[in-house]
């Protein structure tokens, strides 16, 4: 295939976008997968969420802000929004989803391994929260991110984060601590 002048002129721009996206992926994929795994019910869904997040960055590279922190916040927000979209689709099938969660909990309660029981219980309890509230809980309680940083990452006010935390703690306590025999 002959190399045209236009191809040579386009090469630097494409190369720059590819390099930037590669750097973005290498720098944030691990953290995003952790977050996605905590927000989703299984590993496959987490992997899809991460890939879809980076695909959005690839399709609209101009929307990803420059700088480590802004681009990280953009990726986190995109991932949480994708999670919310999936949650909304699940709400449409709420009866089936509720049935699945009930079966999961019943299956979990008879699981012999304590760690697996705890993991499935936490996953099921987190799945009952709305995606944004779930993201707040995961970022603050599991990843240890400060409230101010959570607010920056999700693009909301600190008071909103605190309100989500309060409500999430109340919901999770009613689900987890009630079932915990040590509590």
């Amino acid at each position, binding site marked *: 295939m002959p190399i045209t002048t236009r191809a040579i002129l386009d090469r630097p721009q494409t190369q720059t976008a590819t390099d930037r996206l590669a750097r973005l992926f290498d720098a944030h994929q691990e953290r995003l*997968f952790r977050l996605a795994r905590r927000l989703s019910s299984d590993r496959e869904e987490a992997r899809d969420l991460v890939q879809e997040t980076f695909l959005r*960055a690839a399709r609209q590279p101009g929307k990803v802000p420059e700088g480590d922190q802004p681009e990280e916040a953009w990726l986190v927000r995109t991932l949480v929004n994708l999670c919310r979209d999936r949650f909304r689709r699940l709400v449409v099938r709420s009866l089936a989803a509720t049935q699945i969660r009930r079966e999961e909990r019943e299956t979990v309660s008879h699981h012999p391994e304590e760690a697996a029981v705890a*993991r499935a219980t*936490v996953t099921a309890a987190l799945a009952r929260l709305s995606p944004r509230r779930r993201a707040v809980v995961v970022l603050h*309680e*599991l990843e240890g991110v400060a409230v101010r940083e959570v607010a920056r990452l999700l693009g909301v006010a600190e008071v909103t984060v605190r309100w989500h935390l*309060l409500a999430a*703690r109340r919901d999770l306590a009613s689900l987890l*601590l009630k079932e915990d025999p040590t509590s």
Partner: protein
Amino acid sequence: MNTDSNPDRLREVLKLGDPVAQEPGLTADEFHAMRRAVLTAIPEPRRQVAWLPLVATGSAVLLALALVVALGPRHRPPAPGTPVQPPVQVAAVPTPRAAPPVAQMATAVPAPEPGKSSTHGHRRPARERKILPIHQDDAPLLTASLPVREIQFSTPGGTRVIWELAGNAR
């Protein structure tokens, strides 16, 4: 249930059931497959159409020229063998003056010079047919015998116009 008193306990339970604590991250195969999928999803940059304004301008100029040639005045050379028609000429005809009195007419109008063409200038000069002596007694005869002025025109198309004016016409 007072949840404010046991946030640490809740955090402990959450960390105990943290799925990430028990599972590895992306495997090498998953990492490379996802990276390849993401990097190949970059859309091709749009080709710049810098030549488009030039083409548009050129087309507009050509269109304008074509319109000028099609609708402008036509100057075609005559085909060989075609007779050339002379342009229409308008003959300058002098305004006829008021006829002078008969007595003056008899003396003022010169006789036509022999040998001069009557078609010169597309106008034939007036001529006198008869000049009779004037007598006081025969006035009716005088009236009848007044000279008649004849003016002839010839147009470029070949039509000849002859005006005959009575002697006392003004």
